[in-house]
């Protein structure tokens, strides 16, 4: 309790608050600009903390990192471009809402879900810090493999109208994810004597090409993003819409809580969380929804689900980072660098000696999420007006963002070329109804599945899946698939009955 109070005192220091106010806009900017994301934000900001007091420097890094995905949701919803790969799942329904002239509503829901998800993540961090060891230690390679498998089980759910197309897209993602060096043996696969392919395909060009290029092609028709009223006037975007969206995430509290807790849980397991969590929670939200047929066409639950988990996973990823010095995500590696730069070594001894600082950082997470979302909520009405601009004006600007964003990740021109190659694939996938998020999820999960399957088989033998947590996760996977099957069958039947009824009504009126 004393540590918690000291943590609050640490957070309430004027210099920490000041740094928080400076870091939040910087983090939002990194999120809004496509291709940059949390990893780039931390790598750019890391040298700046040198010489700062530890809690001030760490607050600066953590606050700027925590709001990156909040900023990314703005680009995803308004422009259909993922600010960072973790925002790709938000595009599905967020951008669909923007196209229907409801950008304000989608933004309100996304930002409030981000804030509340971030707070839930921090609360879990508060709760877990003292008792974290057995929780994280109970997750070995077999359990992590089953977690990745849980993600794969949502592939068909991401398929929209056709589950088989979702599965095919996911399988293509899994296959593309095997290109380049195999992590366990170091042998490069399918590289065709092209040096670029030695490291496999890169996530940022893939995400930008798959999502941004097809939307830009659409905008090149000259129409604005938002639909117009029947009389040809543009839709109005008001503060009321934004607040109604914010209210929606509170009204659908169980979607938010479930997604956030799932996000924290996935973030907790090193190497799993960052890009996977939003897709898994999107699939879970669709599976649990009473109106799954609205997903992909502008369901608000499809925005709340991924956005709730997007910020919550950071709280989860901080747990192994602080408690064991094991980075919970790739960006956390840089945060550990920040600790070292400031003369601290995260790990069990850090918690023993500096528990107050750990709690202080959890408060920073809460503060940054709330401030970041509040700032954007106040600006949302004005930001959403972007969707009213003519397509011919927006297209070159978005193309610039995509080209520069792709290049700046690795300072490599080949990445830009691959954006257009994946863009062509994305256009084809969009035209014939293949799920692009399913491809991305398969791509992200492929190395995890392969590596942990390999380690599990070699360490625990063929019966590794009989471990208790694995069995529980397997039950979740099978149960979820059965439930989804029953639901889809019921939905199909209802739709058929509805169609037949409409046809009958039509023939009666004739």
């Amino acid at each position, binding site marked *: 309790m004393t540590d918690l109070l000291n943590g609050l005192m640490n957070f309430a220091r004027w210099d920490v608050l000041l740094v928080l106010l400076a870091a939040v806009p910087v983090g939002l900017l990194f999120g809004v600009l496509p291709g*940059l994301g949390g990893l780039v934000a931390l790598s750019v900001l890391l040298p700046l903390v040198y010489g700062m007091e530890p809690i001030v420097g760490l607050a600066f890094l953590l606050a700027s990192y925590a709001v990156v995905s909040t900023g990314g949701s703005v680009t995803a919803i308004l422009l259909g471009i993922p600010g960072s790969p973790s925002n790709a799942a938000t595009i599905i329904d967020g951008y669909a809402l923007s196209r229907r002239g409801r950008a304000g509503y989608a933004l309100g829901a996304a930002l409030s879900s981000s804030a509340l998800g971030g707070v839930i993540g921090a609360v879990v961090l508060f709760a877990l810090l003292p008792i974290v060891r057995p929780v994280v230690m109970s997750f070995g390679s077999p359990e992590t493999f089953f977690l990745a498998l849980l993600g794969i089980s949502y592939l068909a759910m991401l398929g929209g109208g056709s589950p088989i197309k979702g599965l095919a897209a996911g399988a293509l993602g899994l*296959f593309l994810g095997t290109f380049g060096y195999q992590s366990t043996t170091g042998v490069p*696969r399918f590289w065709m004597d092209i040096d670029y392919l030695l490291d496999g395909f890169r996530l940022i060009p893939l995400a930008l090409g798959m999502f941004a290029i097809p939307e830009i092609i659409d905008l*090149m028709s000259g129409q604005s993003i938002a639909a117009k009223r029947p009389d040809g006037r543009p839709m109005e975007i008001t503060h009321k819409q934004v607040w109604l969206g914010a209210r929606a995430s509170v009204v659908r509290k169980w979607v938010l809580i479930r997604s956030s807790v799932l996000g924290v849980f996935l973030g907790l397991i090193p190497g799993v969380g960052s890009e996977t969590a939003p897709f898994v929670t999107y699939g879970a939200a669709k599976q649990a929804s009473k109106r799954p047929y609205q997903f992909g066409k502008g369901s608000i639950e499809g925005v709340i689900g991924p956005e709730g988990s997007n910020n919550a996973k950071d709280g989860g990823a901080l747990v192994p980072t602080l408690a064991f010095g094991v980075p919970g995500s790739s960006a956390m590696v840089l945060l550990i660098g920040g600790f070292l730069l400031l003369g601290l070594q995260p790990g069990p001894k850090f918690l023993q000696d500096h528990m107050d600082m750990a709690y202080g950082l959890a408060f920073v997470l809460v503060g940054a999420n709330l401030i970041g979302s509040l700032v954007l909520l106040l600006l949302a009405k004005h930001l959403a007006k972007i969707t009213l601009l003519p397509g011919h004006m927006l297209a070159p600007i978005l*193309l610039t963002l995509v080209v520069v964003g792709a290049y700046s990740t690795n300072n490599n021109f080949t990445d830009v*070329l691959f954006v257009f190659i994946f863009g062509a694939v994305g256009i084809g996938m969009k035209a014939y109804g293949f799920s692009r998020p399913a491809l991305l999820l398969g791509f992200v999960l492929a190395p995890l*599945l392969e590596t942990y399957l390999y380690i599990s088989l070699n360490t625990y033998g063929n019966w590794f899946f009989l471990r208790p947590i694995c069995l529980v996760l397997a039950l979740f996977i099978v149960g979820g698939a059965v439930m989804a099957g029953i639901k889809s069958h019921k939905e199909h039947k209802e739709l058929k009955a509805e169609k037949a009824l409409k046809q009958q009504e039509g023939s009666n009126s004739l």
Partner: protein
Amino acid sequence: MTCRQGNFFSAAVLLLFTSTMLLLAIFNWEYSAKVLQFPLMSGSLLVLCAVWLAIRSFTATEQELIDESEVFSEGNRRCSLLKRALWLSVIFPLGYVFGFIAGLLAFSFAYTGYHGLPWWQRLLTGFVIFAVVYIGFYKLLGVPLPIEPMWMRD
């Protein structure tokens, strides 16, 4: 191309791509079983899906296939899908040859001019692009972008 033909074509491309890669991996690159295990698993799943999709493109009704697909917005004759794709294809060479500032600005002015945007919208678009590339990424964030033409780089 009808929706049915498009669905069959996409299934055929998937099948061709995956089977070619797997055959090359087995017979040409001769990867060991340990290296090939996972690609073989995911590739086989993909081949099965592709075969299923190819069969389905004949068995499903045209309406079912149309319902699954998404239609791109239509514009006037200056915005046909082919012309849009052509515009996209010039970005990469322009950026590569003239650098990001000159290349992207040239694209912006040519594109907005072609579509007859008013002068102030053309200027505003150019200014935003300059601000994002030069001020935002290059100066503020310190991203080492190829501002100058690639042939002038060391």
